[in-house]
């Protein structure tokens, strides 16, 4: 049984992100894998089993802070689960949780989950917009949008490069680069939204193949989600052409 943990879906549920797990579950079921979506409501402590995927989705800035404070109590359990093969997916504003520290606009610092050495830098202004990102080694582009008030700094392993729209990583001088997100063997943290897996079926299949070790998943026939993805990518590519004129 592959367990897909949805952390605090009652607290952190902006932009329909929990649908990413529903999409992933459908793909796994289609390929014959038993799966279960396990919601962990705010205030409860998750008990992770080996393997599977743990998802934390976008929330308001206040709710992320409440959520992070509560997660501190079980963050060691999360790290242990990742060591034992669980994959962590952080989407939207939840990407900041990957960091050691979150720097707030009023000067306060609060803790992230400490899964990498990066720092999350919150901003007073909001970054919004459609994006197209390239992932190293992948032919398909990530079609998404941003809606956040945060950048990451000190990221060693960025996930994407922006070819339309903003990146999300500051360099050491505080200048915005084209890099976005954090990708390791055990984690993907990205400010990109969608829901990520609904909007980008190719990425969903990549993660499903990773969870199962079954590369046949990468060759599943396209469905309505794939056709919708093509329409969106074409429209966003046309924006690149329009912007460059």
């Amino acid at each position, binding site marked *: 049984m592959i367990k897909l943990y949805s952390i605090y879906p*009652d607290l952190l*549920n902006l932009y*329909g992100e929990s649908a990413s797990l529903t999409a992933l579950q459908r793909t796994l079921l289609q390929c014959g894998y038993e799966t279960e979506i396990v919601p962990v409501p*705010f205030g409860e402590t998750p008990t992770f089993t080996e393997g599977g995927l743990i998802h934390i989705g976008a929330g308001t800035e206040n*709710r992320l802070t409440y959520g992070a404070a509560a997660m501190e109590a079980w963050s060691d359990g999360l790290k242990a689960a990742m060591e034992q093969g669980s994959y962590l997916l952080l989407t939207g504003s939840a990407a900041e949780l990957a960091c050691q520290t979150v720097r707030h606009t009023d000067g306060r610092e609060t803790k992230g989950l400490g899964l990498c050495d990066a720092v999350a830098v919150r901003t007073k202004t909001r970054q919004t917009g459609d994006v197209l990102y390239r992932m190293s080694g992948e032919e398909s582009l990530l079609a998404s949008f941003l809606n956040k008030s945060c950048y990451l700094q000190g990221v060693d392993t960025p996930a994407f490069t922006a070819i339309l729209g903003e990146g999300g990583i500051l360099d050491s001088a505080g200048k915005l680069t084209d890099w976005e997100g954090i990708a390791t063997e055990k984690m993907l943290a990205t400010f990109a939204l969608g829901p990520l897996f609904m909007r980008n079926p190719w990425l969903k299949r990549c993660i499903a193949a990773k969870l199962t070790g079954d590369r046949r998943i990468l060759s599943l026939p396209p469905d309505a*989600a794939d*056709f919708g993805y093509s329409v969106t990518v074409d429209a966003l590519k046309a924006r690149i052409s329009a912007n460059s004129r």
Partner: protein
Amino acid sequence: MIRMMMAILCCKTAAFVGRLIGKGSSMPGKLALRICPDLLVRLKLPETVIAVSGSNGKTSTVEMIVQILQASGKQVCWNREGSNQTEGVTTTLVRNADLRGRVRGDAVVLESDEQYARYTFRHLKPTHFAVLNLLRDQMTRNGHPEYILSKLQEAVDTANRLPGEMTLILNGDDPLCATLAGNNPVIWFGSDAPRGPAAPAAMYDDGLFCPVCGGHMTYRNRTYATFGTFECEACDFSRPTLDHAITFADPETGEITVDGAVNLHTELKTWYNFYNMLAAYTVALAAGADSASAAMAIDDYVFRNGRVRSWILGEKRLVLLTAKHENTTGYDQALELAARRGGDVLILVDAISRKYFTGETSWLWDINFDLLNTPNIRRIFLAGQYGYDLENRFSYTGVPGDKIYRLDSLSQIAEALGSENDVYMITCFADRAKLLANLPKNAEERSENL
């Protein structure tokens, strides 16, 4: 003075030309503000200046407020086109002003964009500022409701720096709105009609946690979205005592009673509209209208803003419900209405916003399309550029697949509307014209209640 007069003249000319070509509710104001940046401060406004903001219902509520005030014999200046940012507000005021900057009329009623009110209020202080609600809306532009709350708080603080008094008229049932009350006098409206504590069927619940401390919230009565008699379990934040309340409401019949004494009826039988009617009633009374005239003006009110329209086609009706895609609460209400009344449903998503380009469709997953999973709904047609995204979305509902038809092109809409069933057509402002252009030629529009 000369600069102001030049600005007024240019704005009036531009507005006149704009009206001839069917455009230009903001450009004239923008031009005027370029010529005279402090124009709004210099204008002489009537004694009553009402601004209405919030996520849902601004245009409809403003229309009803104007209706009440006009029925009371007042001459009203208002931004009927709905252009609600600073430039649009400027255009509205200047079109109704003389060259010396005196705005004609007894009252000004302005729909005020929730993100931009903080800019408009640098120069103009309303005597009454109504905030209808704070809900998920245009998340691409607006972020989320807590972010918009911070912008509205800024608007209130900005206005308070100007001389004069401003009364806030707030939806006391909305936990976010309820945090806006500071030192301004406040008139609270909401619902005391008994409904039970159950949350409405929706894909998310933003009413679970206290906006002040993050504690769990409970409700004795819950009407729709986050609205109801809320109380935080961890701090003393709770629903304030209402000044005006819906004391009875029946979404089946459209009957509502306000303050135990004022009986109204509407064919737009949604809680969304019930709250809008109550808000309009509350604002108008605060502005000096009397209860009896207010009630008469909005009883069975038929909106002229074109958001709800109907046609007769043979023996059946076509009903257009214009709902912003990105406003999931309003969209859910449109789906509920269609599901209650029954027939076919046509959903058109070809552009997402009329104001800016975006390919963002996360709102599809916030809308509760399972509301259409009822024997009342015979068929569902999906149309537009985002037809595949809609098809994918519906594949995750309980609606049987054989009820769903994706149209390959807009030209198929007329055929889809040709069955014997009534059809509820749901689309956004950006796509409305495309839908109307593809209606069957023999459909006859009726100016009537639903």
